[in-house]
Structures are given as structure tokens and as C-alpha cells.
């Protein structure tokens, strides 16, 4: 029931104006500044240069991009492996149980991210809960270095984004007709075949959506690597923050964030195209 009239225009005017003024314009600015250079006192000098982009090719920075990428991929895969059984169980549970179980997934999803990251600091610190317990029962006699490691960062990220995987997976699996699984079983499919040939293809839109919802915030993560990772666990997000707020090289910071955003958008677009899941519903 689409009516082409002028009311649509008037309705959309306030949101469109705000979006243009406070979102599109700032993005354009970041793009412009990424071609400027840093002034002597940290300001912006409008001399056109590509230097900010060529600096990114420095192995030092490329390594940070690379490690962010593999941390994000690993986190996404772990969330998928951990989240799938849970999403499947919820989708197949009796209706009464479904809403309760869903609520249990949504609560952490709505709980402050810093608080949830802090929980792991509390557990993994040198004088933290895990070390205290391990020392107490005599399993170790020196506290382990658990915090400020890659492992801590990955645990924190998986913990933070697991609900983002479970919810879309559940939405896809819930729509799956159980009769299809029974039919496959009746036709002598092994449970492995049922999974790879029936469940997985039908769950694909959920898998695609879940992976995007985990991968995108993870690759640009700042809080988790900052609080749980050490100085060597820098990710792109930390590098951008450093350039912007500490070193005050805004042009280079802008180039970094543009490469991050461009990479994410191109990656998402390519992924959606190749995975063939058109609607994310």
C-alpha cells in the first residue's frame, strides 16, 4: 500500500536532516582530514597528501590490522561454535521455556559492556579469583599471568558478543520445520547428514547475521583489548584512539578509521553477496 505523496517527504525531513548534518557530514570530514597532514602542535594542516595512507603500509601498523582481523575471525568462529547448540536447544524447547531461556540470553545483552569486561578482570587478575582459588587448592604455587594476554582478550570478546550470535541463530532455527528433520531421518540420513544437509542450510540466514553482528564490533573493539589485553595486544581500535586522543595526529587517525570502516563495509558487502543470504530479517 505505497502512496506516493508529499507527506512522506515531510515525515522524513527531520530524521534525514539530522542524519545528514550529524552523521554524513562528519564522515565526509573524516575522509577529507585523512588527506591532510598533522600541524606542528597537533592541529590539522590542509596540505593535500597521501602520506597517511602510505604510513599504514608500515609493517608495524599492518601487523596491528592483521592481528585485529584474526582475533575478530577467531572470536566469531568461537561464538558460532558455542552459540549454535544453545540457539538450537532454545528453538526446539517447549514454548513456555523458550521465552524464559531467551530472556536469559537478552539480560547479558542489555548489561553494561564495561561491567561484563570488568567481571573478567576480577577473575583473571594476578590477585584475582581464579589465581586465589588455584593457589588455595595448591594447584599452583605462583599466580599465573592470565590478564593482559591474547587469551584474556578473546575470552572477553567471546563473552561480550555471544548473545549477538545466539539471538539471530535462534530466530532462524525457530522457523525451521521439525518435520523436515524427521523426514531426513526417515530417509535414513545420519544425524551428521541431517545437520550438514538440512539444519545448517536452513539456518544460514541466522549464521550470516550472527557472524556479522559479532565480527563488526569485534574488529573495531577498543574496550576489551584495552582492559584485558597488554601493551602488545593492541587492536585497530586502540591504535585509532591513541592517534586521536593521545598523539593527536588526527589526519593519520582519520586515515586509519577510514580504512577500518571501508574494509568492514566492503567485507560485509562481499560476505552478503557470496553467502547468498539476501534478507537478514
Amino acid at each position, binding site marked *: *500500500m*505505497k*502512496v*506516493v505523496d508529499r*507527506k*512522506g*517527504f515531510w*515525515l*522524513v525531513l527531520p*530524521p534525514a536532516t*539530522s*542524519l545528514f548534518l*550529524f*552523521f554524513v557530514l*562528519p*564522515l565526509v*570530514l*573524516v575522509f577529507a582530514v585523512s588527506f591532510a597532514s598533522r600541524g606542528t602542535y597537533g592541529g590539522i594542516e590542509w596540505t593535500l597528501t597521501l602520506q597517511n595512507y602510505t604510513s599504514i603500509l608500515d609493517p608495524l601498523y599492518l601487523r596491528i590490522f592483521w592481528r585485529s582481523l584474526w582475533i575478530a575471525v577467531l572470536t566469531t568462529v568461537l561464538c558460532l561454535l*558455542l*552459540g549454535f*547448540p*544453545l540457539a*538450537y*536447544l532454545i528453538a526446539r524447547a517447549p514454548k513456555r521455556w523458550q*521465552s524464559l531461556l531467551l*530472556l*536469559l540470553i*537478552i*539480560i547479558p545483552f*542489555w*548489561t*553494561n*559492556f*564495561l*561491567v*561484563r569486561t*570488568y*567481571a*573478567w578482570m*576480577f*577473575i583473571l*587478575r594476578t590477585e584475582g*579469583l581464579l589465581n586465589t582459588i588455584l593457589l588455595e587448592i595448591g594447584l599452583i604455587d605462583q599466580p599465573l599471568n592470565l590478564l593482559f594476554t591474547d587469551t584474556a582478550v578473546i575470552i572477553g570478546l567471546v*563473552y561480550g558478543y*555471544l548473545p549477538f550470535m545466539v539471538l539471530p541463530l535462534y530466530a532462524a532455527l525457530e522457523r525451521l520445520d521439525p518435520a523436515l*528433520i524427521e523426514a531426513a531421518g526417515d530417509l535414513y540420513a545420519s*544425524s551428521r547428514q541431517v*545437520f550438514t544437509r538440512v*539444519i545448517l542450510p536452513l539456518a544460514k540466514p541466522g549464521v550470516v547475521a550472527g557472524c556479522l553482528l559479532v565480527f*563488526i564490533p569485534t574488529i*573495531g573493539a*577498543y*574496550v576489551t583489548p584495552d582492559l584485558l589485553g597488554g601493551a602488545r595486544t593492541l587492536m585497530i581500535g586502540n591504535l585509532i584512539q591513541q592517534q*586521536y586522543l593521545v598523539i593527536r595526529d588526527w589526519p593519520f587517525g582519520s586515515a586509519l*578509521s577510514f580504512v*577500518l*570502516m571501508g574494509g*568492514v*563495509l566492503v567485507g*560485509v558487502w562481499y560476505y552478503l553477496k557470496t553467502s547468498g543470504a539476501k534478507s537478514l530479517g
Partner: protein
Amino acid sequence: MMKNRPWLAAASLADLLFLYMPIVILIVFSFNDSRLSARWQGFSLQWYSKLFSNESLLSSATNSLVVAAVSTTMATVLGVLTALALEGRSFRGQAVFEVVLLLPIVIPEIMMGVAMLLFFVMIGLPLSLLTIIIAHIIFSFPVVALIVRARLRKLDPRLEEAALDLGATRWHAFRRITLPLLMPGIIGAALMAFTLSLDDFIISFFLAGVGSTTLPVKVYGMLKTTVTPEVNALSAVLVVISMVLVTVATWVQRK
């Protein structure tokens, strides 16, 4: 698949334990009577009383509530307008608008923080609660639009048409038929926007000026310097608040 049930249940239980154990541990230890917080020394409420007498923490909490209240109101209005414009009407440039509308949701948060900081500094608007509010409106109204639009799609258009046939004006039909039917979706979306605003750290961190610290920015500062059980107490309070918000949101949207 039936015979895999025990395995499935075990894996799911492990997931739930993984999700809840850290939160439960935090809450339990917020009642611990010790500074060296990982060893249980007896029950105490001292961290809660310290928490509620911490002036700077309370003022940043007030800031957060102000930001969340104002940005949620604005984002809800803009989001509902967007949903109404996108559903049932068409306008020039709609396809472009729909793509741009998704961008604040899709791009990494830090990018948004950077862009906003650069923009406000360049136009000479001093960093304050206002700049944080503007940024929060921008990242939450597309989410409101998405939720309300989904609800709008499920409405039966014949209801509004019937009202029009019975002589109601367009505004009257909207006010008396469409809006009440949309209300659960709008309230749910507003609660989501409120939570997004209350939880946002990165964007507020980039935009926080002197004296405009929000609660997450303050908590982050505490985590970076001294970790005291006061943070556990604060965490427990925040967890309870989000549990209440989720329960209300779920309950409202089921109507």
C-alpha cells in the same frame, strides 16, 4: 537429532554458566568485607554505602540519566517519523536514505566517535553533554526506526482504512488507531534506545568534555586506576537495573 539431546543440553548449560558465572561472582563479591577482593572475608554492605556517598560517581550517573532521557525522547520521535515515512509511503531518494540509515548501526562504534569528535571540534561546538546527546540520538534513532517499522509492517492496514471510511480525518485515524496499536513497539524501542545510551562508552569517551563525564566513562577511569570492590557494588546495581529494563521491555512487547 533426538539422540543428541543430552549433548545439546550439556553444551547449552555450559554456555549459560559461561554467561552468568562472571556476573554472579561480581555480585557475590560486592558484599565481601575485604579490600583484597578475591578472598571471602564475611558479609558487608560497606561498598554500597561508599558507592552512594561517592559524589563524583553520583554526578556522572545523573549526567548519564539526563543524556539517556533526552536522547531517548528525541530518538523515539525521529525513529517513529522514519518508520512511518518508510512504510506505506515513498519519497524521492528513499533507497539512498535507507542505506544511510543503516550505517550508524553497521559501522564500527569507534569510527562514529572519531567522526563526531572531529565534526564538533571543527564547527567549534564545545564538548559537553549536548554533544554526547546529539551523538546518542544519531546512533539510536535508526534502531528505533527498525523496531517500529517491523511492528508497523505487521499491522492490518484495513483498520486505518476502516476508520477513514467512517469519516475520521487522517490525523484522527492515526492518533486513535495506528498509534495505540504501535505503542508496544514504540515503548520497546524507546527502552532499547535508553539502554544503548546508558551503556555507551566509546562515543561518550570521545565526546566527554570537562565536567560532562557519563557513568561508563567514569567507571572506565576507575577500572584503569584503582580497582576497589566499590566497582563490584556499582556493577551489581547496573546489572539489576538492566534486568528490570529487559523484563519490562519483554513484558510490554508481548502485548
